[in-house]
C-alpha cells in the first residue's frame, strides 16, 4: 500500500539558512503520525511544504499517490491547524467553520454546509458558540473552532502544527482525547507536529523524530524504545528521558567513568566501534537505584506525593529517574545505582549515532 503522504529528500533554506536538510517521511492512510522535535527542528516547515504553503528547494511530495510537489496549495485537499493564529477575525465562528465549504474549490450547498457545521460543532462541543465573534472566545474555544474548521471537510490529510501547545494542561489532555476519538470514528489521516513527548505518545500511532531538518527515526514508540537510532532520540523520548554516561571502550570491556568494574560488551551485541570514548545511554527504567552498585549523589528531589522524581549525579553524568512509592530520599544523599541486566545502548561520542546492535542480525 502506498502512503497517503510520501515526502522524499525534502530540502528548504530560508535566507541561505537550511531549515530542512533532506526530510524522508511517510504517513500511512488512517494513521496519526506525530512529528516530534524541539523548536526549530523543521516541523512547521515540513507541514507548510506538505500543504503547499512553502516551496521546497529540492525533494518530492506525493499525496495519495499524486505528485503534488509543484501543485497549488488550494488544489491539494489538505487541512491545516496552526499553533497560534487560526481564526479569521472578519468572520464569526459559524462562518469560520464553514469557510472552506464556501470556497471555489470545495463548495457545498448551503443546506449541506449548515448540516455539517452543526454536526462538527456538536462533536467539538462548540455548538453554543456558533454566532459568537471570534474575538470573544477563550484560547481553548479558539482551538476547538480551528479544529472544527479542519474537520468539517474530509480532506486527504490533516496537518496539525502544535494545535494544542498554547493551551493549559487540562484543556490539552481533553482535546487530545477528543482528536483521538474523532480519528477512531472517521479514520482520518493526520500529521501532528509537536515538541511535547507526552502529547506525541498519547495521540500517535507512530512517531517520527525530527532534529535540525532531518528525520532521525520513525516508528512505534515501542520500536523507538527498543532501538533508539541516535542519542538525540533518547534525549527527546521518555519521561524522564534517557540517562547518558561518559564511557570508554577498552580491551573488550566498557569502562564507565567513575564506575568500579567494567561492563561486559556481550550485552551490547554486535559493535560497530573501535576502542575509544563512547556514550552509554540507558532508559531510566533500566537503572536500579538502591543499596548496590556505583555511588551517585542525589542532586534534586521532586516529590509528587505518590512517587518521587530525583536527579542523580554520578562522575559519568547526571540523570533523572522516578522512584515509585514514598522512598525516603533527601537532597545530597549518596545513593547507589546499577545498570540493569542487558540494558543500555552505546552511541558514538561525537556523532551520536548508535553503535551497539543488540538483538539485530548482522
Amino acid at each position, binding site marked *: 500500500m502506498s502512503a497517503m503522504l510520501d515526502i522524499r529528500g525534502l530540502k528548504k533554506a530560508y535566507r541561505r539558512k537550511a531549515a530542512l536538510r533532506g526530510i524522508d517521511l511517510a504517513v500511512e492512510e488512517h494513521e496519526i503520525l506525530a512529528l516530534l522535535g524541539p523548536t526549530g527542528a523543521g516541523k512547521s516547515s515540513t507541514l507548510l511544504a506538505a500543504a503547499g504553503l512553502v516551496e521546497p528547494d529540492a525533494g518530492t511530495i506525493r499525496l495519495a499517490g499524486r505528485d503534488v510537489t509543484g501543485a497549488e496549495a*488550494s488544489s491539494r485537499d489538505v487541512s491545516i491547524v496552526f499553533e497560534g493564529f487560526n481564526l479569521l477575525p472578519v468572520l464569526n465562528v459559524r462562518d469560520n467553520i464553514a469557510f472552506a465549504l464556501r470556497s471555489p474549490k470545495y463548495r457545498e450547498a448551503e443546506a449541506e454546509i449548515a448540516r455539517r457545521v452543526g454536526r462538527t460543532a456538536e462533536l467539538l462541543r462548540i455548538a453554543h458558540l456558533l454566532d459568537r465573534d471570534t474575538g470573544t472566545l477563550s484560547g481553548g474555544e479558539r482551538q476547538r473552532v480551528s479544529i472544527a474548521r479542519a474537520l468539517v471537510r474530509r480532506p486527504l490529510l490533516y496537518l496539525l502544527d502544535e494545535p494544542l501547545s498554547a493551551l493549559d494542561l487540562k484543556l490539552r489532555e481533553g482535546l487530545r482525547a477528543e482528536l483521538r476519538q474523532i480519528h477512531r470514528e472517521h479514520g482520518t489521516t493526520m500529521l501532528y507536529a509537536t515538541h511535547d513527548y507526552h502529547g506525541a505518545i498519547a495521540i500517535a500511532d507512530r512517531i517520527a523524530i525530527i532534529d535540525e531538518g532531518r528525520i532521525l527515526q520513525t516508528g512505534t514508540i515501542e520500536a523507538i524504545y527498543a532501538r533508539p537510532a541516535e542519542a538525540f532520540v533518547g534525549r527527546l523520548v521518555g519521561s524522564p528521558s534517557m540517562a547518558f554516561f561518559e564511557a570508554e571502550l577498552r580491551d573488550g570491556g566498557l569502562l564507565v567513568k567513575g564506575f568500579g568494574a567494567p561492563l561486559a560488551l556481550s550485552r551490547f551485541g554486535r559493535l560497530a566501534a573501535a576502542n575509544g570514548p563512547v556514550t552509554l545511554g540507558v532508559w531510566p527504567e533500566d537503572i536500579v537505584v538502591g543499596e548496590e552498585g556505583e555511588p551517585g549523589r542525589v542532586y534534586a528531589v521532586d516529590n509528587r506525593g505518590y512517587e518521587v522524581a530525583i536527579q542523580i549525579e554520578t562522575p559519568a553524568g547526571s540523570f533523572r529517574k522516578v522512584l515509585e512509592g514514598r522512598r525516603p530520599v533527601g537532597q545530597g544523599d549518596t545513593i547507589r545505582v546499577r545498570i540493569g541486566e542487558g540494558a543500555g545502548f552505546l552511541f558514538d561520542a561525537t556523532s551520536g549515532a548508535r553503535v551497539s546492535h543488540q538483538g539485530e542480525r548482522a
Partner: protein
Amino acid sequence: MTATRNQAYAHLSRWILLVLLGLYTIYNLGPILWLMISSLKSRADLFAMPPKLVFEPDFSGYQSVFGVGAARDSASSVGVFDSLMTSVFVSTVGTTVAVFLGTLAGYVCSRFEFRGKGDFMFFVLSTRMLPPVAVLVFYHMMFARLGLADTWLGLVLIAVFVNVGLATWIMKGFFDGVPKEVEQIAIVNGYSRIYAFLRLVLPMVKGGIAATAGFCFIFAWNEFAFASILTTTRAKTLPVKISTASGATGIEWTQICAAGVVLIIPVLVFFYLIRRHLLMGMTFGVLGRR
C-alpha cells in the same frame, strides 16, 4: 519636619510646572486665537490702536473664502474660494491615489521577498527625507516642459509624490501586523490569494488605511514648497494663496485670516480622527519589522 518641607517643595514645583505649561499654551494657541479674532474684524478694527477686544464681527472674510454673499464678487476679493476648491480637490485625489498605491506596495513589501527589497524600501523612504527646495528648480523645468505647471493634474502628481512613500511604509507596518496565516488559511481552504487580500486582509487593516489617509491628507493639504513654485495663477492651493494674497486694495488681512482658519480646520478634524493611530502609524512604519 522634612515631610512638610517636601510638601512645600511639591507644591512649589507644581505651581512652576503650571506656569510653564500656561506660558507654553499661550505661545502655541495665542497666534491661533489672534488669527481667529482677526478673521472676524473689519479692516478698520484690524488696525485700530489699541487693539479692540470688543468689536462688531465682520464675516466678509469667510464669505469670500467660501464664495458666498456679496463679498465674493467685490473688487476687494482675492479669489480665495478658487484656491480652497483647488486644495480640496488636489488633497483628496492625491491622498486617494497615494493610499491606493501605498496599500498595494505596502502589502507586497510586507509579504514577499524580492531582489533589492531593502534598497527599494530605503529609496521609498528617502523621497520623504528629500528637502524639496533642493530639487524645486528641476521640478519646475520638468513640469513646464510637460505642460503640467500651473495645472490641477500637476498638483495632484505632487501630492501623490510627497505621500506615496510614507503611505507604503505605514501600510507595510499595518500589514506586518496581520498574521501570514490569514492568507495561508484561505489558500489551503481553496481560495485565491487575491480573495484573501481583498476580503480578509484588507478588512483587518481598514483602520490603518484610514489612519494613512489621514496622514496623507494632512501632508498634501499643508504642502507648500512644491505648490508655491509649480503654480502661478490658475491652480493655487490655499497655503500658496494665503502667502501671496493681495487684492485691488492691497493685502486683504481679513480674508487671509479667514482662509487661515479654514486651512486649520481639516487638519484638526483629521488629527482628531486618527489620534489613536498617530503613534502606531509613526513607529510601525519607521521602526517596524524588517
